[in-house]
């Protein structure tokens, strides 16, 4: 009996000891598992919005319904609304100036001596921007002289960017419009229009098709003339001298976007490219135009880099995709500003989306990270929007000085920078730690979440100095917000000798 009691006592002690020691071991294992799982989730390609869940529409995971408003807070009207002019678009001005220089015109004589009246009109309104545009041409020459010395370092990045560019420029889908829009926009129409059950049904189906065609975020709105260029219409021979008419069949616009590949984008400027986003957005616009034509409706696709009659970011804001950022681009809840837009204008009756208010303006007013990081100082650092553009209150932005740095940057084509996009705290992957914040901040009326997040952003995160993003021939060290991904480091794959160090965020080990 005594032995039996002793035996039971020993068993109880043994079980207790097992639980005590087992519990400690389990706690240690859990901590290790939390660290390991966290690291893997940070690496997880499933967090790359736009790469895997697109067709199911699951890239657009943020529920916009609670944030719908009648008027977009970042499209505040404070003066008479003016439509954009042909010359407001930099890629209309730039080739005109370039050709004038080629033909013997001396830019040092000043913009007043240019023959092109529309370009002159732009610089008469913004004379302070002319030196920046001139400097862009100078920087392009510098870039051409120095770029090849760095080919070993950037070979894979440039090959990546230029492959997408080839795809963008060489493919004829969708074809550029050549006829009057009353003809060209109907070129794919097959018979009488199919009758949809209602505009709501049409919008629902259109969105499904946009996701199916590869876009991550979509919105629909009535086409607002405020964002349709004057004197600009793509036709055979160019896009000028159209007048102010807007075709009658341009009723609604479906606007959508895709992200640029995340890891090269984070390594802006030198390792990044926009052309992957452009290529995918362009292709989706062609597919949607073809689909609308099959159902008997007009379609006018708008696609990047320059095939537009409309200004897409404010249209995307009206369509509830996001809001306007300090740097003037669209911020979406899912992708931040890492989105490349395309659109299709149509005569199909659609139910429009409403704009949203996720308090991006309050965030941008306090953040200023993009303005501090901008290698050309093109983004306003004011605490409140300090400019009025065609009747809308915005933060000031100098597109000519921005372009000057594009011409400086060690990218594949000298046509981009993307540093302001990479450093934006909204440009974060869809992993749990960022998505919790993205869901909490718009719902927090006290602003505590925003202030806490920004305190961490400003103090915990590493941002290279603005000058560091420059190439070495203008005093920088080719910094990126992140170091380049493994697959863009030429020393990992090519027979090259690594003679450089990286400056940017890394995994921390």
């Amino acid at each position, binding site marked *: 009996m005594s032995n039996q009691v002793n035996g039971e006592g020993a068993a109880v002690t043994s079980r207790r000891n097992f639980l005590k020691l087992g519990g400690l071991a389990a706690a240690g294992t*859990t901590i290790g598992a939390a660290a390991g799982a966290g690291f893997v989730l940070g690496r997880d390609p499933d967090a790359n919005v736009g790469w895997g869940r697109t067709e199911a529409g699951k890239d657009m995971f943020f529920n916009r319904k609670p944030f719908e408003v009648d008027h977009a807070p970042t499209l505040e009207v404070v003066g008479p609304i003016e439509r954009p002019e042909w010359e407001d678009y930099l890629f209309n001005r730039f080739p005109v100036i370039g050709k004038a220089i080629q033909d013997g015109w001396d830019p040092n004589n000043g913009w007043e001596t240019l023959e092109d009246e529309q370009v002159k009109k732009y610089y008469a309104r913004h004379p302070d921007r002319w030196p920046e545009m001139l400097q862009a041409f100078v920087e392009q020459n510098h870039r051409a002289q120095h770029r090849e010395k760095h080919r070993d370092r950037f070979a894979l990045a440039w090959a990546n960017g230029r492959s997408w560019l080839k795809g963008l420029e060489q493919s004829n889908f969708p074809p550029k419009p050549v006829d009057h829009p009353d003809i060209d926009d109907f070129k794919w129409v097959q018979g009488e229009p199919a009758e949809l059950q209602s505009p709501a049904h049409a919008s629902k189906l259109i969105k499904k098709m946009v996701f199916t065609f590869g876009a991550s975020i979509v919105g629909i709105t009535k086409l607002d003339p405020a964002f349709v260029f004057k004197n600009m219409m793509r036709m055979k021979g160019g896009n000028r001298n159209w007048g102010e008419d807007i075709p009658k069949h341009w009723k609604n616009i479906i606007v959508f976007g895709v992200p640029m590949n995340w890891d090269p984008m984070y390594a802006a400027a030198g390792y990044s490219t926009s052309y992957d986003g452009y290529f995918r957005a362009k292709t989706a616009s062609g597919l949607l135009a073809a689909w609308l034509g099959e159902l008997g409706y007009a379609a006018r696709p708008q696609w990047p880099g320059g095939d537009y009659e409309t200004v897409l970011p404010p249209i995307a804001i009206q369509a509830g995709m996001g809001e306007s950022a300090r740097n003037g681009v669209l911020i979406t809840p899912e992708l931040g500003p890492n989105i490349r837009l395309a659109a299709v204008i149509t005569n199909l009756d659609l139910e429009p989306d409403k704009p949203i208010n996720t308090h991006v303006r309050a965030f941008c007013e306090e953040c200023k990270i993009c303005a501090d990081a901008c290698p050309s100082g093109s983004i306003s650092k004011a605490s409140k929007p300090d400019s009025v553009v065609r009747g809308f209150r915005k933060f000031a932005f100098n597109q000519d000085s921005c372009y000057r740095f594009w011409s400086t940057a060690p990218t594949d084509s000298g046509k981009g920078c993307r540093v302001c996009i990479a450093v934006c705290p909204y440009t974060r992957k869809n992993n749990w730690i960022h998505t919790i914040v993205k869901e909490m901040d718009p719902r927090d009326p006290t602003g505590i979440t925003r202030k806490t997040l920004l305190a961490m952003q400003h103090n915990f995160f590493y941002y290279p100095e603005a000058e560091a993003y420059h190439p070495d021939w203008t005093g920088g060290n080719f910094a990126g917000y992140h*170091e380049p991904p493994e697959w863009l480091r030429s020393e990992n794959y090519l027979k090259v000798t690594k003679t450089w160090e990286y400056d940017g965020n890394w995994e921390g080990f």
Partner: protein
Amino acid sequence: MFPQSTLLDPPFWMLLGALQVLVFAGAGQWAKHVQLAMNWWKWSLVGGWWFSLLLTIAGAFTLLGENEGNAGWYFLGFVGTGLIVGGAILLKVLFVLNKPAANQS
């Protein structure tokens, strides 16, 4: 890469959940060992602290995983230190609150 594996991912999270039973069973034995009288709200505080610690570690390593090295270590250092201090205070409070209960028995 595990636990992104289609096959291993679900068992990983199930095992991690099961381990928490052992963690709290062990914690119960330790509480008895040091004669801590625990009740539901004390266990809630301990559980909340444990969950916060795990989230902080996982959050820091998520940042490291996505190449935000600075942010990951700073986050672990600042928030983790705060949690360790908070945990020590919680333990002290549990012992202080334990005295009257021990006298009554």
